[in-house]
């Protein structure tokens, strides 16, 4: 009973509350209820991230609990703004530390500019004007043939990875990579055009 003091909260009522709003509520009244709701949104994602790096179910489950503990302690000390990027960084660093402890060499790249990338994402640029549409269309034509094909099928025709792989003959990994790199290139080209 005592452990489920916020389990009565209707999930549909809290679904629309953003991560930032939940954090602000927590900073305002320090009620753990908000932290519980916020962290539960990330349980599966954290488990997945830990699985990716640790490759062991039990170790991944332990790691998630340790990450939760760290997050609970750290959130009391600091005001966090980009929660998703922050918790991702904590999880990744924790897994890398675990791997280092086991003295295994790893070539995981730590230099991801997570905060910077997500900062751009959080800005939620959605400038709907003719000029931008034209710029996106032009930038799309400048992508490599594979990237253009995958981006078009994924975003314009709303096909799934599997469907795209079936249609193009690429592997699933290639499809994913063409979409991610294509989107990144598209953003870079648009930024360049806007700065001109």
């Amino acid at each position, binding site marked *: 009973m005592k*452990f*489920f003091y916020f389990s009565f909260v209707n999930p549909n009522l809290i679904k629309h509350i953003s991560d930032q709003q939940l954090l602000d509520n927590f900073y305002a009244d320090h009620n753990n209820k908000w932290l519980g709701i916020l962290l539960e949104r990330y349980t599966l994602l954290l488990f997945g*991230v830990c699985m990716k790096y640790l490759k062991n179910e039990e170790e991944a489950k332990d790691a998630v609990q340790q990450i939760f503990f760290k997050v609970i302690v750290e959130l009391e000390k600091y005001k966090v703004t980009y929660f998703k990027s922050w918790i991702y960084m904590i999880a990744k660093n924790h897994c890398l530390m675990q791997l280092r402890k086991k003295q295994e060499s790893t070539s995981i790249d730590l230099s991801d500019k997570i905060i910077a990338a997500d900062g751009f994402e959080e800005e939620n640029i959605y400038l709907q004007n003719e000029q931008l549409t034209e710029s*996106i269309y032009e930038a799309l034509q400048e992508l490599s043939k594979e990237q253009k094909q995958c981006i078009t099928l994924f975003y314009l025709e709303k*096909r799934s990875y*599997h469907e795209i792989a079936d249609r193009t003959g690429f592997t699933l990994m290639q499809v994913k990579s063409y979409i991610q790199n294509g989107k990144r290139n598209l953003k870079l080209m648009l930024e360049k055009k806007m700065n001109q």
Partner: protein
Amino acid sequence: MNNDLFNILANNSNIDTQKLIDYLNDKLSYKERNEVERWITDNEIANDAVEGLQQLKNKKNLQAYVDQLNKNLQNQLQQKKQRNQKRRIKEYPWIYFTIIAILVLCIIAYLVIRNTLH
């Protein structure tokens, strides 16, 4: 067409745990798969997580894992609450001392007044 082009730049809304589990268990329609995959493309954490979750041998147990981890999380939060309460007592002992002192004084005053009246 214009809106579809804007979709490339738009940030896709969050996908909840149940939908992600359904995606991993191949229970979604092609349209829903596209929705989840657009979200994955935009989120580094989701991208890494799906890669990790796809390594699981038995994805049917995912919901049970999540439930167990959430239960443990609630335990951790409950323990933190209790620790905070204990710390508050330790940090402000004079408040409790003052309350006890006032109560004792009230009892003494009552006894003195009663004895005096008698």
